[in-house]
């Protein structure tokens, strides 16, 4: 900045210099140079100090310079003293020696000289500035300017004369002599001899010798260019250099930042910014997910090896025709497969047909037989096959669980309950049998089948070695069971045979012959003996078996606790009529509570059932009674106030409704209280109203009317009919009277007139006394007081003395809640604010298409979506802002306002807090 300024100032100076003769310009510039040299030495002193120093020892410097400085000083401080010094003619001063006498003639214009120096004053200051910014760069530029001046002069001459610059060398030298006078000031040119001898050696001098050599023209061109181009600057001190670099860098980064401006502006002005776009959900297609699949299990690997078989892959890659080749199947294989399938189908068909046929058979006996058969096979299977036994056990278990859950055979059906309600005794034999059968079935189903389970569990247990004993035991048990059965069968058979033998004595044929008879008898006896023996054996073995098996059974019983087999089984069929006894159920596995209930039914008598019921009912009743009473009481209550309230509409039969009603009743009660209070209010209100009515006749209104009357008649002028015309024209509407009436109304509203005291005949006193005495005195007094109060209130009003003004003093506290005391911040006018909240934004008041836009928040984001920082993109400032017309207009204005004005407000505060250093 400074530099540019400086240059700007320099330029006019240069122009002036150009106007002058060359000598003049030289001297000037040299002087400047000398000053600058001063400046260069060491740490710089303040101007005043330096002046002092120089005044004290002028001998340190050359005479001419001293003089110069003096003159400069004069320029510095435009003081009287220095002016005086300046007025000393130059010839008389010690400068004399410096000036060539010849040149002196040419150049003796002291005032001119002074004038020239005036701008140099600025120079000095500017130099100071420069030091601040640390540029000896500027000095260099001065040098350059000087050289430039030379060059320009020469060039000018060239241009004028059209002769080469060398031609002016002589002239220049001549001039240089003049210049040379100035040089001694400088420390670089200490000796005068050198200067006198022809000044500095210029490049031209050096080039002169080369003039006739080849390539001189080129060289000269380069030299010219060099002259034109700037001189290389001396390196600055690092501190200053860095500072400047920093400034430049800051400028650049500022400029960089400017590119964000439109983007940021757009975001700020947008009614809504969205951060929920383009969420990457990863894979979306099935193919993409499938491509990630890697086979892990054996099967998957096998599949993969087949699918990714090289041949197949290759075939796929090609047009796929080879796939068919790979798919080829031999004729035999196909045939075989076909046959196999056909066979299977025919088998299936036959089986189906057979099943159908069997299903169609309606014969009961057949089915019974079938069932028996099935049971038999099942029994055989259980005996033979442990697996089947297990299955059977499972089935049994399942059925048991089902039965326990559903209680299907537990007299829970409609039919059973009905029968039981009626009483079992009343029923006929068949029904009773059916019921008992059902119960028995239940008992059967719910009985625990321990043996099966044990067997299955032991066989399924994985620890063979440890369970071996158990297995042995179990197997022995089974064996024993089987053996005993076999024995039993054997005995039966033998007995039968014995009987048969007795019966089957043939009466005819060969056997009837006597010897045959004898032979038979013998044989019979032998057989009987044998049979007896066998029976004995059987019995013995039975006993043997019984003992250990019994012991073991008891053991198992002890362990399982509930197991009941043989005995119960045997007894059950025996005693269908005895079922009602407890024993059976005590033995059975049914749960205790079930048992208890069962007992109740087993007792079986109707009476007991009824008793039980009664008990139940009784137990329930005590709970119900209070409720009922409550209901009743509520009912009563409801009925009682009925005529007064509207709740007597219906008294419903069901309790629920009664409850509802009772609730209503509560409401009614709660409502009643305010109702009860209301009349009081009404009375309070009515009193003053009445008083007003009375009053209006008497004083206040009369006065008012008087006032109006006094106002009303306007003085009429005899002037033209104009006013009359006007009056006629507006005869109909009497504005003032209207206004008065309005005011009166408002006054009455805000300060209501007291109610007229009302005399109710027969109240307080006998009517005749009332008639005689009129209103009681206290009533009148009260009325008077109220009237006086009102008068006072009216007088205190602000608009009491203002005829044409109504100042409302009524403050609606409820409405106050809905108003703001001041204009809210971002809004600048009341109208704008009111506009902004005029239209409702709810879904009830706006179409669905608009509601979303009206309610959209300023920032729309999705939880769980990472928001990235802003990224640069070009913004077209004139483009239409996308989106939501509805909310856009309203919010935008608000936003921009807030953005604009908020920072400004805070400015002062901020300025105080911080301080800037570059």
């Amino acid at each position, binding site marked *: 900045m400074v530099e540019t300024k400086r240059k700007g100032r320099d330029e006019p100076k240069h122009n002036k210099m150009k106007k002058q003769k060359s000598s003049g310009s030289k001297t000037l510039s040299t002087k400047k140079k000398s000053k600058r040299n001063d400046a260069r030495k060491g740490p710089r002193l303040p101007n005043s100090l330096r002046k002092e120093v120089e005044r004290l020892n002028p001998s340190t410097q050359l005479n001419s310079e001293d003089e110069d400085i003096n003159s400069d000083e004069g320029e510095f401080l435009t003081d009287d003293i220095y002016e005086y010094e300046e007025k000393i003619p130059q010839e008389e001063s010690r400068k004399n020696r410096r000036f060539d006498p010849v040149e002196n003639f040419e150049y003796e214009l002291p005032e001119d000289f002074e004038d020239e120096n005036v701008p140099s004053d600025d120079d000095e200051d500017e130099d100071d500035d420069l030091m601040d910014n640390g540029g000896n760069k500027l000095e260099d530029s001065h040098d350059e300017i000087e050289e430039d001046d030379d060059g320009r002069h020469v060039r000018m001459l060239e241009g004028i004369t059209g002769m080469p610059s060398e031609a002016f060398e002589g002239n220049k030298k001549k001039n240089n002599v003049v210049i040379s006078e100035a040089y001694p000031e400088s420390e670089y040119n200490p000796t005068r001899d050198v200067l006198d001898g022809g000044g500095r050696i210029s490049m031209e001098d050096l080039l002169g010798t080369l003039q006739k050599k080849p390539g001189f023209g080129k060289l000269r061109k380069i030299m010219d260019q060099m002259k034109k181009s700037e001189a290389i600057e001396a390196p600055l001190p690092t501190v200053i250099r860095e500072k400047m670099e920093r400034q430049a860098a800051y400028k650049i980064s500022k400029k960089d930042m400017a590119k964000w401006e439109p983007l940021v502006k757009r975001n700020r002005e947008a009614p809504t910014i969205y951060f929920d776009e383009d969420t990457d959900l990863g894979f979306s297609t099935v193919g993409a997910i499938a491509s990630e699949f890697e086979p892990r299990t054996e099967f998957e690997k096998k599949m993969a090896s087949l699918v990714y078989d090289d041949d197949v892959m290759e075939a796929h890659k090609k047009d796929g025709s080879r796939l068919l080749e790979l798919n080829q199947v031999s004729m035999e294989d196909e045939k075989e497969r076909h046959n196999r399938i056909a066979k299977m189908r025919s088998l299936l068909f036959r089986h189906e047909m057979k099943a159908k046929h069997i299903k169609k058979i309606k014969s009961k006996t057949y089915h019974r037989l079938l069932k028996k058969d099935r049971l038999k096979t099942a029994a055989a299977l259980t005996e033979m096959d442990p697996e089947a036994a297990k299955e059977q056990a499972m089935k049994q278990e399942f059925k048991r669980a089902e039965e326990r859950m559903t209680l299907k055979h537990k007299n829970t059906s409609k039919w059973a309950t009905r029968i039981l309600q009626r009483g079992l005794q009343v029923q006929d034999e068949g029904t009773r049998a059916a019921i008992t059968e059902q119960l028995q079935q239940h008992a059967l189903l719910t009985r625990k089948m321990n043996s099966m389970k044990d067997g299955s569990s032991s066989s399924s247990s994985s620890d063979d070695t440890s369970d071996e004993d158990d297995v042995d035991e179990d197997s022995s048990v089974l064996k024993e069971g089987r053996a005993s059965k076999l024995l039993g069968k054997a005995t039966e058979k033998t007995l039968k045979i014995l009987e048969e033998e007795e019966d089957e004595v043939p009466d005819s044929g060969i056997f009837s012959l006597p010897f045959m008879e004898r032979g038979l008898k013998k044989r019979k006896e032998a057989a009987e003996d044998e049979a007896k023996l066998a029976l004995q054996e059987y019995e013995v073995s039975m006993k043997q078996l019984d003992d250990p098996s019994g012991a073991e059974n008891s053991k198992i019983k002890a362990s399982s606790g509930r197991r009941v087999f043989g005995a119960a089984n045997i007894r059950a069929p025996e005693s269908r009529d005895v079922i009602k006894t407890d024993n059976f159920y005590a033995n059975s596995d049914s749960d205790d509570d079930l048992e208890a209930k069962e007992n109740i039914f087993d007792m079986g008598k109707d009476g007991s059932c009824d008793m039980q019921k009664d008990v139940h009912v009784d137990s329930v009743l005590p709970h119900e009674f209070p409720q009922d009473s409550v209901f009743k009481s509520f009912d009563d209550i409801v009925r009682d106030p009925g005529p007064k309230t509207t709740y007597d509409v219906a008294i419903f039969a069901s309790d629920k409704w009664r409850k509802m009603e009772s609730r209503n009743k509560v409401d009614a009660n709660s409502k009643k209280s305010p109702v009860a209070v209301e009349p009081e209010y009404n009375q309070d209100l009515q009193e003053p109203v009445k008083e007003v009515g009375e009053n209006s006749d008497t004083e206040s209104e009369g006065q008012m009317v008087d006032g109006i009357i006094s106002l009303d008649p306007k003085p009429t002028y005899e002037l033209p009919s104009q006013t009359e015309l006007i009056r006629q024209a507006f005869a109909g509407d009497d504005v003032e009277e209207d206004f008065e009436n309005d005011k009166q109304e408002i006054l009455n509203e805000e300060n209501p007139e007291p109610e007229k005291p009302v005399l109710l005949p027969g109240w307080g006193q006998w009517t005749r006394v009332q008639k005689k005495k009129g209103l009681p005195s206290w009533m009148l007094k009260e009325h008077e007081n109220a009237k006086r109060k009102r008068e006072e209130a009216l007088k205190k009003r602000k608009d009491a003395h203002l005829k044409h003004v109504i100042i409302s003093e009524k403050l609606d506290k409820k409405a106050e809640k809905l108003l*703001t005391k001041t204009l809210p911040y971002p809004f600048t006018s009341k109208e704008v604010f009111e506009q902004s909240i005029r239209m409702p934004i709810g879904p009830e008041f706006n179409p669905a298409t608009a509601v979303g836009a009206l309610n959209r928040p300023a920032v729309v984001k999705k939880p769980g979506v990472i928001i990235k920082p802003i990224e640069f993109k070009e913004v077209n400032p004139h483009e239409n802002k996308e989106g939501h017309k509805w909310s856009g207009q309203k919010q935008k204005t608000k936003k921009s306002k807030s953005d604009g004005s908020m920072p400004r407000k805070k400015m002062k505060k*901020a300025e105080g807090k911080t301080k800037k250093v570059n």
Partner: protein
Amino acid sequence: MKVKTISRSTDEFTRERSNDLQRVFRNYDPKLRPQEKAVEYVRALNAAKLEKIFGRPFVGAMEHNEAISCMAKNPNHLKGIFAGSEDGDIRLWDITSRRTVRKFPGHRGAVRGLTASTDGSRLVSCGADCIIRRWTVPVEDSSEDSVKPEDFHISKNAYWGVDHQWKGDQFATVGAQVDIWNHTSNAPVRSFQWGTDTVISVRFNPGHPDLLATSASDRSITLYDVKTTIPIKKLIMQTKTNSIAWNPMEPMNFTAANEDGNCYSYDLRKLNEATMVHTDHAAAVMDIDYSPTGREFVTGSYDRTVRIFRYNGGHSREIYHTSRMQRVFCVKFSCDASYVISGSDDYNLRLWKAMASEQLGVLLPREKKRHEYDEALKNRYKHLPEVKRILRFGLGTLFLVCIKVYTYQYESSFSPLLLCTGLDTGTTRGHTWCTRVSSSAQGHWR
């Protein structure tokens, strides 16, 4: 005779699918609904009350063995956050389950700086033990419990902070000087020094990744560009700046958290004045972090509170504090702008909701609409006295409690905020009120 009929074109009134809604015509004439404004006002009032009732921002705490000194969020992984404590322990926390996922043992002294690369794969830590360590963040399902540092660099001076460039591979450490590092090289790529004081914090500009700002103990804020070899600009504040945060959506703006309890927002291009001064904290602001939306920032302070400010708001929108919460050293906004995490002197990381009364979890569209409507209503009627009172001071009962607290605290001349918060009933709004009262009363008392 002319008969007027209602005629509707079948094209317009036939539904395309059976679950399409039938077109319903409503008359939106305001004359038909004279109460609409009153209705909306009451709704706004209710919405304001509900905001206070549901204003329970605290989600959970995660415990270290020492005071938390620094945190870093994983820019690529929403639920991962790194926390370093004074005993040199660095942990990766899973915010959702609030459990430690990994430990990064190695530092001997306090961990002062933590930062993760943009892809979340690398972690850089530095500490008072003069060591910079670089770690590779393990992938989710690797089983080992702790991670070994990939690389480390020891220097003469302790480090005070580190920050990673957005999307670049450079990171900056500060301490005695500002060093710019590369992930590949073992020595700093570039070093800056301007002045002799210790640099205490550093932050890269996320929008303009070459730019970074540091603050030093000589009260200065300095701007650097990693592309150049010299610092750009220095700003001297009246008090020390503890931390700086750039606005991620407005690259020219940054906010400085200062020792005097204020935050100052600056525009990079006009550094002669702050664009906004955010006041409310009662003690030095220790850390600051911008919301990724750029519309809010969170500050943690030495006065044991966390506050949330709007980017253009002079006062805080929200203040968070719980029982047993001590001086807050570091705060972070989660990457989805819906949570705030604070680390404090009481060994705990605390997780907060950014909006105190926000409903978490997946919202049904109708719920979402309802919330939006409530917000819009609150925003519209926030100037009316009742709504304003509730939004600023909460519901009535707290009011009296606070007055008692306040009178007590001045008699006992304790730290005002401590007492206020100690007796608070749990809603956060109470604090705001308390501090305001206390600040206004201070003037009155003195």
